[in-house]
């Protein structure tokens, strides 16, 4: 395997010791881009196979969890001859700081990419203080 593939290979999500999942499926950690903009923080997560109905976003205290459930793309009556990627659900959790306006988080899914917009709370927005010289 080349190094390029290693970079894009999916990582399996880690479980706490002694904790098991009820569904017998693999769970991957989706790759994310997190961009801080002036008024919000935008998260993009690659979750191929997930649509707007199969992604769950929960916010408990400061923990933001994204979970995407997939229906594996398995062609009927076909046998898997070459497997370069595994299929499974996606899960990733982030801690949010106080500076996020938790009531106005927006989420959209398009072409298997989740886009989360986390607006900054009013107090966390950077204010530019004009410096005035002595008049």
């Amino acid at each position, binding site marked *: *395997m*080349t190094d*390029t*593939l290693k*970079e*894009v*290979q999916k990582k*399996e999500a*880690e*479980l706490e*010791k*002694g904790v098991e999942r009820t569904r*017998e499926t*693999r769970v991957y950690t989706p*790759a*994310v*881009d*997190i*961009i*801080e*903009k*002036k008024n919000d*923080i935008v998260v*993009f997560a*690659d*979750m*191929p*196979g*997930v*649509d707007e109905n199969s992604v769950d976003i929960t916010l408990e205290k400061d923990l933001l969890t994204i979970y995407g459930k997939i229906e594996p*793309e*398995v*062609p009927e*009556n*076909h*046998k*898997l*001859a*070459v*497997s*370069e*990627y*595994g*299929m*499974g659900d996606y899960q990733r959790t982030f801690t949010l700081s106080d500076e996020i306006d938790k009531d106005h988080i927006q989420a959209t*899914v*398009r*072409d*298997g*990419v989740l886009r989360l917009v986390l607006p900054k709370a009013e107090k966390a927005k950077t204010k530019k203080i004009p410096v005035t010289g002595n008049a």
Partner: protein
Amino acid sequence: MTTTYLERLLDPWRELDRMNRLLNTDSCGGSEYPAVNVWINGDNAVITSEIPGIDRETIDISVSGNTVSLSGSRPAEETGEEESYHRRELWHGMFSKTVRLPFSIDADKVKATYRNGVLRISLPQLEADKPKKININ
């Protein structure tokens, strides 16, 4: 990560991944982005690939003989002023991948769909390439 031997035994995906790594399957030519799964059913093959965040119009699929090539690109998100990356893990750039099948493909009957970031190409075998039964007179 805690997995028991039994769990590993019961998970066919993990086992397949492991076998692929061991064999370093080259029958499919190359192992660069995007990763593909190839499914075969006699005279029909299906290739699935996870390529999220691509405009379907820009995916190029071409078939020649027993090979199929996919190419396209995923442009990086444009960042303006006062924007900064906290994390940058998503794959961006141009990709091109060639997959070789064990039979000649009927290019006119190839069908492709792209849904939720998953590309699926159905590739039937060329009629002339199928084995013929010879009757003995």
